[in-house]
Every structure is written in C-alpha cells, then in structure tokens.
C-alpha cells in the first residue's frame, strides 16, 4: 500500500473544513498527478462569496439575485467579435476538441494573450444521459480539456478557471440527439 503525504495543505477558498487532509490510500489507486490542473478554479474571476441570501415568506432560504442574472448578458466583458462565438461542441462521451473549433480557440487565446488582465471561466456541460453526478465529472473533463488547449496556445494559467455544470444547465431542453448534441459543450465566459 502506498503511503501518501500525511499532511497536505488544503487549497479551499472559503472552506470551513479544517485545513488538512490525511490520505487513507486506495490500494488500486495510482499516484500520477496532473499538477498544473490544480490551479484551475483557484482564482475564479468575478466570483466572490457575496451571494445574496434572504428568507422567503414560506421560510425557505432564497439565494442569488434574479435581477442581476437577467441582465447578465449586459455585463459581458469579452471581445465583441467573440460574443456569439464562445461555444465548443463535443462528441458523445468525449472531451476531444474537434478541428472545426480550433479557430474559435485561437481567437480567444489571442485576445487573452493581448489582454493579460482578462479572465475567462470555462463552463463544461454534458447531455442528460447518464447520472447527474457522473456527468458533473465528465463536464469538468471537457472544461479542463479546453483549459489545457488554451495553455498550449500560450494563455497564462492564471487567466483560466473552470466550472462544470454537468447536465444541470442544458442549452436546449429536449430528449433526443438533436438536443443532446447542442448540450455537450464548453462555453467560454469573460
């Protein structure tokens, strides 16, 4: 059985868990790690912990600001030319970036290299097939795939963060391949 480092500093942002982890070793596990990936999401642009929380008339907690989110598109801070061109679609159960999206990726990468203060959040999404928890992991793999590609195009890792919504935020709601192909995607947001 492998013996991993007994104390690993926790990189949580606003984590109330005590800041240490102890490894208990998964015997069939492997120690190979992708160190560079750990930085994604460590510095999420514009995402503070300032979520609005109120209590509704029925006693339920209400979180988020519906008004702010309706006007989200008004707050777009990316390049105007890429406003409508920020989505990369994937084949079923794949995180491989297809050739037809290389142009889009290069355009965003160019902008990010020219504007070192610009930050993007790459959202990973899946279709509805499979279970929600598994799909969250698949969506993260898609977002990481795009992030890695951006890094290979010379974008600084600190300009990139990722989030997976799995199957929770479909672009199109429907229950056949015509809809699913629109939902297997990564979206670049500034």
């Amino acid at each position, binding site marked *: 059985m492998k013996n991993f480092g007994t104390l*690993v500093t*926790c*990189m*949580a*942002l*606003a*984590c*109330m*868990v*005590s800041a*240490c*982890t*102890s*490894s*208990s*070793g*998964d*015997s*069939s*596990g*492997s*120690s190979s*790690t*992708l*160190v560079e990936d*750990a*930085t*994604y*999401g460590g510095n999420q642009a514009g*995402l503070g*912990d300032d*979520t609005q929380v109120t209590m*509704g008339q*029925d*006693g*339920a*907690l*209400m*979180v*988020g*600001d*519906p008004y702010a*989110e309706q006007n989200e598109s008004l707050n777009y801070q990316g390049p105007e030319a890429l406003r409508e061109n920020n989505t990369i679609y994937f084949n079923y159960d794949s995180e491989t970036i297809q050739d037809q999206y290389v142009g889009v990726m290069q355009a965003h990468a160019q902008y990010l290299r020219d504007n070192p203060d610009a930050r993007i959040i790459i959202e990973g999404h899946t279709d509805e*097939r*499979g*279970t*929600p*928890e*598994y799909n*969250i*992991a*698949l969506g*993260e*793999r898609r977002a*990481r795939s795009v992030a890695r590609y951006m890094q290979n195009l010379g974008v600084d890792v600190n300009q990139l963060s*990722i*989030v*997976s*919504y799995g199957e929770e935020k479909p672009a199109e709601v429907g*229950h056949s391949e015509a809809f699913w192909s629109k939902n297997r995607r990564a979206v670049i947001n500034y």
Partner: protein
Amino acid sequence: MFKILNRLLLTVAMLFLVANQAQAALQIEITGGINEGRKIAVLPFSQPDNIGVDVQAVVSADLMRSGKFSPLALSQIPQNAVTEGRLNVDVMAQTGAEAVVFGQVYPDNNVYQVEFQMVALMGAQKGQIIAHYRGPSGIETMRQAAHRVSDRVYKHLTGQDGAFRTRIAYIVYKHKDPYPYQLMTADYDGFNETAILRSTQPIMTPSWSPDGTRLVYVSFEQRKPAIFVQDIYSKKRTKLASYPGLNSSPSWSPDGTKIAMTLSYQGGQPDIYYYDLVNKQLVRVTDNPAIDTEPTWSQDSKSIYFTSERGGRAQIYRFDFDTRRSERMTFQGNMNLSAKAIPGSNSIIVITQQNGYRVARMDVDGSIYMLTTSALDESPSVAPNGSMVIYSTVYQGRKGLALVSADGRFKANLPSTSGEVSAPCWGPITDK
C-alpha cells in the same frame, strides 16, 4: 327541488375546499403491477366531517403504493359489509380479500383517537381480529395518523417496517420562476410539500442525515459548486466544502458520523473523500487518475460504493474500510452507475446502461435484474425499508419522479403539479 340543488352545490363546494387543502405536489399514475398485490379491504372509517383527511383513502393509497397490496376499490366493497355495526365476515370473504381493515376517528378531550381493527378473512384465523391499534392525533397531524395505521397494517402483514411516515427530498426546476431551482421536501406521497432552498443556480444531490433533521446538498449559487448542510426546520446552514474543482455527490453515512463526497482539487482528479463530523477532519479515500464519484454507504457504514472509470468504462466498486481495498462489484452491462444499498438485503440498486439508462438491481451473485424499461433513469433512492426505489426519469416529455418496487413488479409515475422534478432522496424512518 331548489333546496336539493343548493345542498348539492354546497356539498360540491365543500369537497372542492377539502381537495384544495390537501393537494399533493406529486400525483400517482400506476404503470405496472396493478392488481398483482395481495388483496385487502379497507372500509370507510367512521369519522367526523371536520378532520380534513379521509383515513380510508390514505391507508388504501399507502398499501397500493407499497407495491405489495391491491386494496379493493370502494365500489368493490359490498353494501352489506357492515350491518348494525357488525362486520359480515362471510360477505367480505367473498371479495377475495385476505383481511379487512376498519376503524373510526372520534373526539377525546382535546384530541382525536384514531382506532382500527384488522380481521382475517381467510385461513385458520378467519373472523378473528389479527391486529388492532388506537392512538391520539390532533387535526393537523391527521394524515400522519392515517399513515401510522398503514404502517401497523403493513408491518403485521409483511413483517417489515412500513415507510409511510417518511419524507422525500427532491429538486424542482421551474423554468419561468425568478428562483428556478428549488430544493423541496414532502411526505413520501407528495403531500405537505415544504421549500427548503430556492436558488437562481442549480442545486444537486440532496442527501438526508439519518435522523431526518438535516440535508446535505450541492449548490451552484456562487457560480461554482459548494456543499452545504442545512437544518430543514431552522433553515440554518453550514458550508462544508468549496474546494477548487468538483464538490459533488455528498452522501451521509447511516451511522451519522461522516459525509462522503467527490472532490477534484488534488491534481484535478475526481476522487472519493469523506468529512468526519466527529473529528472534524477531511479524509481522502481513493487516489486514482480516472473518475471516481457517486460515493454512497453500505448499511453498516463500513464500506463505500462508488462509480469509477479505472477499468475503462464506469463500473461500481466498493471500498472496504477494514481491508482498505477497492473491489469491483459490477461486471455485466456496458456501464453501471449510482449504486445504492438496499436496507435489509445484500443486493444493490444501480443505473445500468443497456438500451438507455435504467434502474436495475444487482444481486449477490453479480447478476443484474432490470427493474424498468425507460431510457433516461437517474438518481435512484431506496426506501428505508428496502421495498421501493424512487428515481428520476423522463415521461410525457418532462423530467419527473417514478417508483418501482425492489422486485420490479409494481411501477408508478409521480407527475408533478408544477415544474420538472429530479434528484429524489428518500428520508429515514424516524418514528416507530
């Protein structure tokens, strides 16, 4: 003539009022196994008009939903079942029911007494009272009192605890609502729906504490996933995890001491961790570059089932805390996901990929028994007595909940009166 019409209208209006008071957030449409259960008769209870609950209707519906019984419809109950306060055993026996339940609700000082008797209609005990019970209830808890009757009847006839006084948690998505994502709880039959959290962003994977007072869930309210624990009564909550990357799939251990979850902050690889609520410490369970997720607990809290891609496609594995090893559990089917232990059984429930994604049961010998014929099933959750599985699927073009018995015979859809419903989690039995 007018008088009669007026009275009729008044009655209709009153019925409407009662129906509105007791609206279920989830309807029930039986899609398989009707009339296959054991026949039983539940006679209308003698009860005051003001208690707001038709006890016979609640008990009958409970027994039917259990998948084990086919209660007689009111129209199948003979007119002369009871004459001058006496049960006509021979008349009732002709219905083919094995037993008859009858009873009354009556005022007793400041409360009501709910009383029932069950008489056998077959076998050596024919004509004998085989169960009886009386217990107090206020008007506001009358539905629970009716469910308690169901629990007693069920326990007596099956030897198994009833799960009729349990709550379920689920997520409702209401497209046009300013807070479209809503975490709700309701009685297992959809009554008494209560909102716990409404959000502008997705909520996922609610999981009950074993005492039924708290829920752990994932919320995207900060535009990134975080795991919260919330008290369902005070609504107060604590953030448990918001690491970079995944914070997903929380699952409370049956002994109440740990919450398992999937995190990916170490090396970007989704692995299984748990938060130890006693020692207030996060502990890593798996370390594998492939996806490990969907941790859930065995009944004794001594092992964790999880989904892993370490062998290629996603399959179910089990990590044993004694041996500290992970062992592959599923070998049949292209993919198996979302394992859930079945209380009182060595089998597990999984979502298996075979002509779509379907709820299936894997028995100890490794064989997989398909329980459904739908294609987009997910989020199975097993009733605390192991009898039924509630899950999310797509029917009539919408996401909704459905029920299937653990033996696959009884099937029902639970269409919602509002929104698309998913991520059901069946709560514990808290009151015996």
